[in-house]
């Protein structure tokens, strides 16, 4: 008896019951594909966050308010704070300090209305600090800021939403029913993780405070250091000035937080890592469920065919021939299902899922494939090997 005969039996076994084979294949395929895809989504999210933060430049500090102690009222970040930080004598390492007030707002043009997730009021230095380039028109000027003109520079996403076919520059839009003139459109930056960096609009701080947010606390102060090398000097100077202004005593927790891009990166990466771990555990569960499905079908398949094993033994089949046949059948189904799963995973990864472009992790492909294939192999061949050990009459009597 040659190997080709065993192979022929296995092929016949797989094709004899097409529905059963298809279900087994499908089970393995779903398990493999979901693991690959879920891990790719998590990985894609963390990669895009890293890219967008890295794109901001290495000489930027972000100051945001934080509650010092539970119960204590945080002193707010003010425009005066920002002005003090820009003092060339007190803080020589600081090139500029832009106050930022941000809010969400609904913008409308003609009969299109769009909700902008970040409507920012700031000064013109903000654009260079955040590496924002203008694509059409111009940025607003110091004069616009001083005069409190209702001008706005909109992000790429906002531009395409409100002006699908025309050029936005010079047009008027209504922001929370207040008319603003669009003076420029920012160049696209792409989406950063769960957040679209182009879903933004930037206007003079004075205008935004007057029209939208009021004169309360700033959301942030964005500081640009003179160079990447002076970033820690700048951080020290910023801290000294703010501690003085906010009367933060020695050893007390400050009511503000200064983060460099590097620190921001670490913090955000930690968040997306948690996200990836979460997705990976969902993936692990789906692998487990897929595995149980495969186990189930394989066990049913073999049990159903113990009589067949008995018949084969009764006409003189060796144990090895029977084992080889079932092992090959399980291998074919597992391999085929696994390959389909990998293909489905790669196909799914080409689509943007919840705003995230999935990035496939090669090791996850290997893991998903190996786990499902091994489960299929084991549960396809182990019960068969047990049945092959029975006396023919025992296998024939099996119910």
């Amino acid at each position: 008896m040659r190997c080709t005969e065993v192979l022929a039996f296995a092929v016949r076994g797989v094709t004899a019951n097409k529905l059963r084979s298809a279900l087994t294949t499908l089970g393995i395929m779903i398990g493999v594909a979901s693991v690959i895809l879920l891990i790719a989504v998590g990985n894609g999210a963390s990669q895009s966050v890293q890219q967008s933060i890295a794109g901001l430049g290495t000489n930027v500090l972000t100051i945001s308010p934080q509650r010092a102690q539970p119960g204590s009222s945080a002193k707010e970040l003010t425009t005066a704070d920002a002005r003090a930080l820009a003092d060339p004598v007190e803080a020589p390492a600081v090139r500029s300090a832009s106050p930022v007030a941000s809010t969400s707002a609904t913008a409308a043009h003609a009969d299109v209305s769009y909700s902008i997730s970040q409507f920012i009021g700031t000064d013109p230095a903000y654009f260079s600090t955040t590496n924002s380039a203008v694509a059409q028109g111009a940025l607003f000027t110091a004069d616009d800021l001083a005069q409190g003109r209702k001008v706005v520079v909109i992000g790429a996403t906002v531009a395409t939403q409100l002006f699908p076919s025309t050029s936005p520059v010079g047009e008027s839009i209504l922001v929370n029913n207040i008319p603003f003139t669009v003076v420029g459109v920012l160049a696209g930056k792409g989406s950063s993780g769960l957040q679209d960096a182009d879903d933004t609009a930037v206007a003079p701080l004075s205008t935004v405070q007057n029209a939208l947010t009021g004169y309360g606390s700033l959301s942030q102060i964005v500081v640009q250091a003179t160079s990447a090398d002076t970033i820690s000097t700048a951080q020290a100077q910023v801290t000294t000035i703010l501690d003085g202004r906010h009367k933060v005593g020695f050893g007390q927790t400050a009511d503000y937080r200064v983060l460099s891009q590097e620190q921001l990166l670490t913090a955000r990466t930690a968040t997306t890592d948690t996200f990836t771990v979460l997705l990976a555990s969902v993936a692990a569960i789906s692998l487990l469920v897929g595995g149980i499905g495969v186990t189930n079908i394989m066990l049913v398949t073999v049990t159903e065919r113990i009589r067949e094993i008995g018949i084969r033994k009764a006409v003189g089949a060796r144990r090895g021939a029977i084992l080889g046949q079932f092992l090959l059948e399980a291998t074919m189904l597992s391999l085929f299902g696994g390959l389909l799963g990998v293909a489905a995973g790669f196909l799914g990864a080409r689509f943007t899922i919840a705003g995230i472009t999935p990035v496939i992790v090669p090791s996850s492909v290997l893991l998903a494939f190996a786990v499902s294939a091994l489960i299929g192999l084991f549960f396809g061949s182990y019960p068969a090997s047990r049945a092959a050990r029975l006396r023919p009459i025992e296998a024939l009597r099996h119910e």
Partner: protein
Amino acid sequence: MNAPVIEVRDLRKTYGTGDTAVHALRGLDLTVARGDYLAIMGASGSGKSTLLNILGCLDIPSSGRYLLDGIDTAEFGEAQLGILRNRKIGFVFQSFNLIPRTSALANVELPLVYAGVRRAERRERAMAALRLVGLDDRAHHRPNELSGGQQQRVAIARALVTAPAIVLADEPTGNLDTRSSQDVMGILDRLNASGRTVVLITHEDDVAAHADRVVRVVDGRVAQGVPA
């Protein structure tokens, strides 16, 4: 008298243990000569199938000796028993036991595959066996497309395709009408006429009449007064 092909001494088979133990065979002796045509009869539950399964090397006795061609089968290992089942014995089951979703031809070829016969020769011999049972026109039908009598004839074709010296049949006509029974018995008669040893189990006297000799099994033993 020529050397016995089957010789059974004090054969016992017990299923289960303790209170629930069933003694299916209780010290059975039987000798079958080469070329013999033997019918085994007896009440239901008397142990006929148990005996035939042991003779067919599908099962092993609890105790006692079974000499096949003078060699004690207890000495054979799993692999050698497989070869015996394949080359020496053709077994016809009462319930056909064909592999489902597989053509009659492929079912008949099965023992030849495990015997290592090449494809072309295999096909030829399987077709010849099907022709012998008058089913060469049904070669590509699956078991569920065949009548009971036709399935039994396919099973017989499978049993005789390796040209075994011994053909064992457990109630081969048990599920068949008179017409099909006659067909099946005609085939077994011809096999015996060509020198094969045939042992069959039956409940019907007119089927037993085809045999040269009848043995009655009562309570796991060959009944007294009948020459064994």
